[in-house]
């Protein structure tokens, strides 16, 4: 099983991410929305950290069907 990979979430800058990715996505961001989107991105980044810090064997694939 691979070793846990250190998270880079501490250096994450949600406002910079919004500014960089909104044009790529083609979404026009009103300045008044930025704080709420950034808050949501922080929550999502924390969730992502919980997953990236958990070692998964390479052989674990996403199920092609999600039927339980």
């Amino acid at each position, binding site marked *: 099983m691979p070793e846990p990979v250190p998270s880079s979430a501490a250096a994450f800058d949600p406002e910079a991410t919004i500014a960089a990715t909104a044009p790529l996505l083609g979404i*026009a961001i009103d300045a008044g929305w930025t704080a709420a989107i950034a808050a949501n991105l922080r929550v*999502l980044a924390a969730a992502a950290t919980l*997953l990236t810090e958990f070692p*998964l064997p390479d052989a674990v694939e996403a199920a092609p069907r999600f*039927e*339980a």
Partner: protein
Amino acid sequence: MSAAPPMDAASIAAAVASRRSTARDVVAQTLDRIARTDGRVNAFTDVLAARALARAEALDAALGEGATAGPLAGVPFAVKNLIDVAGLPTRAGAKINRAHPRAQRDGALVRRLEAAGAILVGALNMGEYAYDFTGENIHDGDAHNPHALDHMTGGSSSGSGAALAAGMVPLTLGSDTNGSIRVPAAFCGCFGLKPTYGRLSRAGSFPFVGSLDHLGPMARSVADLALAYDAMQGPDPDDPVATTRAAEPVLPVLESGIDGLRIAVAGGYFARGGDPDAFAAVAHVAQALGADRMVELPEAHRARAAAYLITAAEGATLHLDRLRTRPGDFDPAVRDRLIAGAMIPAPFVERAQRFRRWYRDAVLDLFGGLDVILAPATPCRAPKGGQTHFVLDGVSLPVRANIGVFTQPISFIGLPVVAVPVRLDDGLPLGVQVIAAPWREDLALRVARHLERTGVCKAPIAELT
């Protein structure tokens, strides 16, 4: 016509089948109760009086000519407004969808219920695009909890819970991606079934997160849940994830009791981060079932995180064009979460899906040694309408994002769950999840029925004050 007290679906079907009642009278009384009640509850977005009365009269005529009554003969029901209803745009709680073309035909589950004799009377309020646990909707107005009108119904199947608790209909359909049947069932004090992922067809419904979306019934009795569930089972090629398993009716085994069932209480993650009342409700149910064994679902907090990520990313993918062209027409709380979801790097989402496989395998191992797991449905009773934060275990948290902490790790891997209502006192109801292994809805429903029969769980109609 007298205003008879609302009956459960099974009683209505028996009365209509035996011709002691006409379907027309049942539907007329239902429409009357909706007209007198819904102004305070706001459960309905559409009432289909002409359609329902016409169907009722046709049913009465057929029965008068000797036709065989279906198992849901004359039972009025209503559906969350993300399910197609012929002649209506499928609004999914959204202002944007109101301009969609009218649905050409009813959704698959509506057709199956009506084939069993049930009669659709309306479409129900919901949180925008089902991305909601509160029951609040800035476009259609908030649904109000019939047990305390200034409290949340829970969401996103808000009208589905509220219409039951107010006694307007005996049967509703909701959808559940992360808890949207189980949360309003808990807050509104009724029963809800989130079946195994893929068990019931989602064809003819507006999606949210394809890899997590379920449809299911809600009712005030377990027998009504089972009646509806049995009528809706079966493969459907129109839903790409619908099972090809044949229907497995639960009604024949519903009264089998709990002898021999191995029942455990979820500990660890599911025993912290909530109000003491939420855990007291689980303990109350566990004691009634003689369940003294604890079990820990491994890494449940990561499962919840993974469900959260997948929901945001898949939801954003679904709505990307609308976010580009009509961002101002979304509920801001939904829009801002979806935009953030669009910005998640793909490796995180794929990681969440891979973790899903790991977690599924780990949890299925647990079911090798037990049959049913009990867990809280929500971390608290219904918050006040408009409440944005609550304190759980001494920590202030946003309500919207955290009502589903105990439901998300379960639906994440598609397990069947019956949410059962618990009344600890004269206050608002709570809910407990009765969770079974995949395809074992029968076990969860048997346990729920035992709890109902022994008086531990019940779903009384609220007295609106």
